[in-house]
């Protein structure tokens, strides 16, 4: 299972890098979304995939059956953060598109103000 997950993580990172290297802003945002998904999946896999019961104390479940709760808690936090950042990025991209009239990163180089 870990192997499959690793391949999936690799694919996610690969797609993310490909998208982030493109010029369109919206593709870049989708790329960052995939990147953080990859990172979250990595966190889940690295925490170990064992455990069949949810990490809440219940009758008839021994300690060895519980899933490790820490990666789950970490992922939840990371997801919330990436949710906030992605939505901020979307708002920013929208505003930038309105103000600057383009979503092409080539045209957003902007070295003219540096003089």
């Amino acid at each position, binding site marked *: 299972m870990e192997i499959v997950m690793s391949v999936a993580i690799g694919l996610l990172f690969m797609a993310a890098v490909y998208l982030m290297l493109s010029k369109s802003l919206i593709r870049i945002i989708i790329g960052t979304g995939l990147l953080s998904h990859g990172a979250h999946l990595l966190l889940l896999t690295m925490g170990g995939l064992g455990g069949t019961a949810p990490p809440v104390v219940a009758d008839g479940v021994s300690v060895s059956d519980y899933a490790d709760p820490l990666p789950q808690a970490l992922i939840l936090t990371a997801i919330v953060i990436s949710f906030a950042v992605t939505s901020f990025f*979307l*708002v920013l991209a929208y505003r930038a598109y309105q103000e600057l009239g383009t979503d092409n990163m080539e045209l957003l180089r902007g070295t003219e103000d540096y003089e």
Partner: protein
Amino acid sequence: MRTNDVMLQTATKVVTFIILMFAVHIFFAGHYTPGGGFVGGLLTASAIVLLMLAFDLPTVKKIVPINYVVLTAVGLLIAIATASASIVFDVPFFTHAYDYFDLPLFGKTSLHSAMLFDLGVYLVVVGVTMTIIQTIGEDE
């Protein structure tokens, strides 16, 4: 072009309330089973977004006259206040308290101070999500 959205509007009138009820359920279920303030908040926000899709922004503003930034601030204050209460009792920050009560109708119920914190989270999530969506939506 104005599309015919009678179907959407009629369905929304029913579905919104189902989603809201489910949000409340998820919120209270959160202590021992999957759920909680974050998911509940997102569900509530999705119900409001559905209203916005079916009707338009000014109408929804009239139905739900809430300043979402203030809602976020209030949620944040509730959450911090709950966490900070532990300072008064001189136990480490975020320490939660719970006890069992016999309530009419519910019977034996466990009440947690963590629930108040979750209420804060719920309000923050609704507030932030709706602020973002309104920011994008209002420009059109």
